[in-house]
């Protein structure tokens, strides 16, 4: 969260106004790692919930 990157972000500037040359929000390496970990947690949790519910639902055809 507090890992400012030094890269210039004007590359993606679509309007050409207000050039920004730093990343005050901190979206560098540490941020990307946390975001990736969170994505894995979310996907794994959803997969767990879906599989458990599908197993429960299968009782409709087997029970």
């Amino acid at each position, binding site marked *: *969260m*507090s890992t400012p990157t030094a*890269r210039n*972000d*004007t*590359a*993606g*500037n*679509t*309007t050409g*106004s*207000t050039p*920004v040359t730093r*990343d*005050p*929000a901190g*979206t560098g390496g540490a*941020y*990307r790692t*946390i*975001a990736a*970990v*969170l*994505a894995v*947690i*979310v996907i794994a*949790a*959803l997969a*767990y*919930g*879906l599989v*458990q*519910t*599908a197993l*429960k*639902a*299968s*009782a*409709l*055809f*087997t*029970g």
Partner: protein
Amino acid sequence: MPSILDREAIIAPRQFNRWLIPAAALAIHLCIGQVYAFSVFKIPMMGHFGTGDVAVGWIFSVAIAMLGLAAAFGGTWVERSGPRKSMVVAGTFWVAGFLVASLGIATGQLWLVYFGYGVVGGIGLGIGYISPVSTLMKWFPDRPGLATGLAIMGFGGGALIASPLSNGLMAFFGGGTDPAHLEAGLLQTFLTLAAVYAVVIALGAIVIRVPHPDWTPPGWDPSKAAAKPLQTSANVSADSAIRTPQFWLLWIVLFCNVTAGIGILENAAPMIQDYFDWITPAAAAGFVGLLSLANMAGRFVWSATSDSWGRKNNYMMYLGVGLALYLVIALLGGASVVVFILATMVILSFYGGGFSTIPAYLKDLFGVFQVGAIHGRLLTAWSAAGIAGPLIVNSVLEAQADAGLTGASLYSLSLYIMVGLLAIGFIANLLVRPVHPRHHVPEGRDRQKEYAQ
């Protein structure tokens, strides 16, 4: 200098990858969606507190009522404060709710569970539900339906995760799966869930970002989007929105759609067994699981399709086709179990779709400026439906049973009432027109306000 919680501290650079944001939004919705799995605690709590079904059922009802109130009253604050601060506040309330409820379980004080999980946790639910929604729509102005579908699918997914997880934790801590063991594991389960939710919501708050004021998706032309029917590029404030007929028409639409869904959800297991007497309790529980999957899938699929079909057309489908399917169940449902299951699954997918499409519908009509606050106020329709739905269905069922009816005929009257409600919702949706320009916020003021706060 802004605090790390403020909106100004989380403005992303212009080349930021927006696909990192849905995981942050899903993080909080997956956690607070646990509320729909509260029923797994019912029997252990009844044993622990030595009380009945109704007394424990009130915990869930208080939480849902607080959700609507917190979303309605906290919406403007959420919009002003930005997603990180509101996610942190929501997470704090949600986790504190679990901790206070744990104290109630440890000391045998049921009122502390009402206060903790119901009131404190319910405030976290309301703020948490709306906190990432408007941010996601700002990141996906080209596909707002997909964005809100992703987030609100998480609320449905939260219950799918929490239900088996809570059962597993209670069995693990209690040392077995029978009611006495589950009851013994109740306290540790609440504390474990509180810790897990604290970590996941904190990660979501760290990852969340708002788009740079000058950012637009590559290749997206706002003027083309605004040219679509019922989509405005203007903005309406939350205070003005509730003075428009469009807000109240959508309130009726959401109320009718949710009430109709509850009509099935509330009695799904006994209903399929009354329609088909050969269905076992285990198979009926499987049917409930199938409906949960349909509910969750509908949240994503229907909301995403609304980006191309148009929000109004989607609600025509939810309410119109839903009405027809209720009639099919009432008239033919008992003839075929396949027809019954398919019809109820589609109805439940429309129920989920109704929740996730409404923020994008609001954005189309009122703009993105204060859409979170407007969404919060509209969620009072959910609270009202949460009270009216079960009340209608259960009182009609009781009256029909008292009149000596059995089997499928027990449900006919309540199904026809749902058909009537869906017809009202259909007409309300049909009457929705673009908001009159006199309600629009002057151009430029909305943008200044949003980014100067």
